């Protein structure tokens, strides 16, 4: 802490104010607000033409085929217009990192979002998204937990979710968890994707032909209409619609040999006109039968590395059935590629937060902040009746909030609701401190202004210490979900103590002398 010393001159005085000004400028740089338009690429599907051409997450799309893109609605309108039939198209995408030409018959496999106006990151509760706290069954070592996180992360990426963060957390009793946070829109069945162990097995009778994962499956066809996609949709007597999907998987030679050995022992099924074998290929996920495929007689005893996997989705109308079949196919492909999770897991906490509600919350929090600001300024003016003092209190309140946001932007802190409450609490402490300085500086008595301010700074420093020690234990608690409050409170009161308060004390000293 910087205490005013005897013999401070004007140069020293301005030094503290200069530090404040520099801190404000650096914060502005860290937050870097921008008012230009565009949409940001959040993820690009690997092995897609977009990826091969060089599109990467983080790029800002400015225009597509010459049409300017200023928001997500523009983007989807333009793409819908381009891909109105199933012929291959040339798409030229102009980004901040250069132009890319993509040839494709369907919309590029990228997810996009509105370009953020600042570098500030909002928390899930304000942005919308899903958060799951997952507990593995049994006791895991740190290495085993890391493995689990790797497999889960791989699975979510292959499923096509962008903006996913997964980290290990431990509670006081030593229980280990995995915290998964997915920003933005999330699929409705996130629970399945995260919590299912995803043990995939293809069995004939009691014999396993192949399992999910690299060992048995060399490749799974995705995003290639010739070997993967929705094949047919048909209305059912009960009014629903069923869509069938099919995709090809390429087996390893060992798995193909196993297939040959097992099928060679099967007989022809007389019921089907002798076209199929008497046992089916059963597909099981987590030991639950999800589908049974007929095996044509031509495959009997054949070493085949290419197997077509089929399945279906049901919906109230064709659109819903198509959607459901696509999601089922994606899930099945995902677990076939990644294999099963190494451990059984339970979801102990699952939040899916609506982006719309988060948007309303953000608006209301901003409004609350403005009201608090206005009321405090008014009270200070009524009490001291000096425009200069009021202005400097407003200035320091603003500086503290702004520099705290700057720090948050700099280290990429996610600003959730508790974090913002912490900033407001920090500003509250800041105002209290300024009231103490003002009270001391205007108090009567023999002591000099420097002594009085020194006494004020002592109280301020003592109060600062109590808040810090009271909040610090939060960092080790509640799976880290509550530490935002502690973090922003401590950051903003530290900025208060180190930067704004010394500057404020100098300004007041100058006013008083």
């Amino acid at each position, binding site marked *: 802490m910087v205490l005013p010393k005897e013999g401070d001159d004007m140069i020293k005085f301005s030094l503290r104010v200069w530090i404040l000004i520099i801190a404000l400028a650096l914060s502005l740089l860290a937050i870097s607000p921008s008012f230009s338009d565009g949409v940001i690429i959040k993820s690009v599907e690997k092995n897609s033409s977009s990826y091969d051409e060089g599109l990467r997450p983080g790029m800002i799309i400015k225009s597509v085929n010459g049409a300017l893109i200023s928001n997500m609605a523009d983007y989807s309108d333009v793409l819908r217009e381009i891909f109105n039939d199933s012929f291959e198209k040339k798409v030229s995408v102009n980004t901040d990192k250069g132009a890319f030409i993509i040839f494709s018959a369907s919309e590029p496999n990228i997810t996009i979002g509105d370009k953020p106006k600042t570098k500030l990151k909002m928390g899930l509760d304000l942005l919308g998204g899903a958060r799951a706290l997952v507990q593995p069954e049994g006791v895991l070592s740190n290495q085993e937990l890391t493995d689990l996180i790797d497999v889960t992360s791989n699975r979510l990426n292959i499923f096509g979710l962008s903006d996913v963060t997964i980290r290990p957390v431990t509670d006081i009793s030593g229980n280990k968890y995995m915290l998964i946070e997915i920003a933005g829109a999330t699929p409705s069945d996130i629970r399945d994707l995260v919590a299912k162990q995803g043990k995939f097995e293809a069995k004939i009778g009691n014999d396993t032909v192949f399992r999910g994962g690299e060992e048995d499956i060399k490749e799974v066809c995705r995003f290639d209409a010739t070997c993967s996609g929705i094949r047919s949709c048909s209305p059912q007597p009960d009014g629903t619609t069923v869509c069938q999907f099919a995709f090809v998987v390429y087996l390893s030679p060992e798995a193909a040999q196993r297939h040959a050995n097992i099928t060679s022992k099967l007989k022809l099924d007389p019921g089907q006109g002798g076209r199929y074998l008497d046992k089916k290929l059963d597909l099981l996920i987590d030991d639950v039968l999800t589908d049974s495929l007929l095996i044509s007689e031509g495959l009997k005893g054949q070493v085949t590395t290419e197997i077509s996997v089929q399945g279906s989705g049901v919906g109230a109308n064709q659109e819903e059935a198509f959607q459901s079949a696509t999601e089922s196919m994606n899930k099945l492909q995902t677990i076939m590629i990644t294999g099963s999770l190494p451990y059984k897991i339970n979801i102990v*906490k699952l939040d899916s937060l609506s*982006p719309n509600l988060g948007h309303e919350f953000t608006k209301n929090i901003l409004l609350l902040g403005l009201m608090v600001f206005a009321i405090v300024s008014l009270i200070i003016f009524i009490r001291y009746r000096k425009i200069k003092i009021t202005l400097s209190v407003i200035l320091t309140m603003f500086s503290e909030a702004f520099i705290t946001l700057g720090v948050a932007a700099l280290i990429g802190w996610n600003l959730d609701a508790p974090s913002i409450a912490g900033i407001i609490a920090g500003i509250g402490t800041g105002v209290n401190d300024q009231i103490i300085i003002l009270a001391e500086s205007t108090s009567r008595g023999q002591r000099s202004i420097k002594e009085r301010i020194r006494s004020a700074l002592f109280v301020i420093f003592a109060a600062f210490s109590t808040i810090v020690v009271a909040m610090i234990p939060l960092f080790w608690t509640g799976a880290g979900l509550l530490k935002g409050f502690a973090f922003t409170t401590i950051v903003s009161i530290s900025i208060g103590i180190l930067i704004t308060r010394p500057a404020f004390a100098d300004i007041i000293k100058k006013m008083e002398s």
Partner: protein
Amino acid sequence: MDKEKLSKLYDKYYLLLALIPVVLVISSLVYLAGFYSQNGSFIAKDVSLSGGTTITLTDPSTLSDLSDAEFLLSSKIPDANFRRLTDIRTSSPLALVLESSLSPEELKPLIKEALGYELTSENSSIEFSGPSISNSFYSELLRVVLLSFILMGLVVFMIFGTSRFFKSLALLLSVLAIRLTFPLSSGLMIFVILVVTGSLVYCLLKLEKKKQNYLILLLGIVFAVVSIIYPTYFLIYVLLVFLLLVYIFNSVPSIAVIFAAFSDLVLTAAVIDILGIRVSAPGLVAFLMLIGYSVDTDILLTNKALRGSGSINSRIYDAFRTGSFMTLTALAAVLPAFLLITGLPDAFRQIFLVVSIGLVADLFNTWLTNSGIIKWYCQRKGMI
């Protein structure tokens, strides 16, 4: 009434005034004990601390007639609790919040039956906490509140305590609370051992040659060794008593500040229970904030009373003018905004509610009890 008369009246009645919050605290403690024996916890826990689901419905059809929606939902979900969020500018409903101990999988079909639509990420937010994690959150947070309180007490004693021996002893003991609260963190254990060793050396350097001090230090060392090797949580209560005795016999001003903070917590918890508010995890976090935030006026008062100039009454009055203005500004800033804007995340509502109630309690605890004790102390020490 002029200042002199007021000062005389205060001289006459200050101990009586100091008793008012004490009586309130004792009644609150009795109330909380009753509440505990009925509910098994000092506060009513919401689903984030007891297990269950919170669903925030934002579909316009639900919001067009909230009472109707609540009626339909409560007929299907017997244990449902409701809260409404409204938009400040249009005063139109923003969302209906439903809390239930059931899981989302059980609730979704019931809600569809009642309201006739499926829940999606567009029209709702769903937050689910399993019973085991919620209970572990709750017990963790209670332990953290106690740890924060012990650390706050240490800082206060460091500021206003006089004996260097007892200050380093208090540091030695308080840091053990970290070990007892987080027994599994090896990083924190190393930190604790370092601080304990350092403060032990300092204790020995500043040891006054009195029989009882040797005994106290010996007790402290034994306690430290036991806590480091066998960090059983029960020991923290022994530690609490040990620290309180050290503070009571060494620094009346410190114990007055610590008592004020304790009273703030107790009164706030009692008021929250009486208002029937169910506390969520952020609400408990707000109690931590209260511990740190409410003692600043007590520190201001004590500093002014012990180190200021003028008569004791004028010193207390000076501090009162500044301190109560601080508290009232905070309340005046937050309360109107808070009451007007209901469409805020639960974390916001809980934090501001708990801190606001705590600040009101702090007005009484600081300016009646703490000031009374400090005046009595200054008079006894002849610091008039």
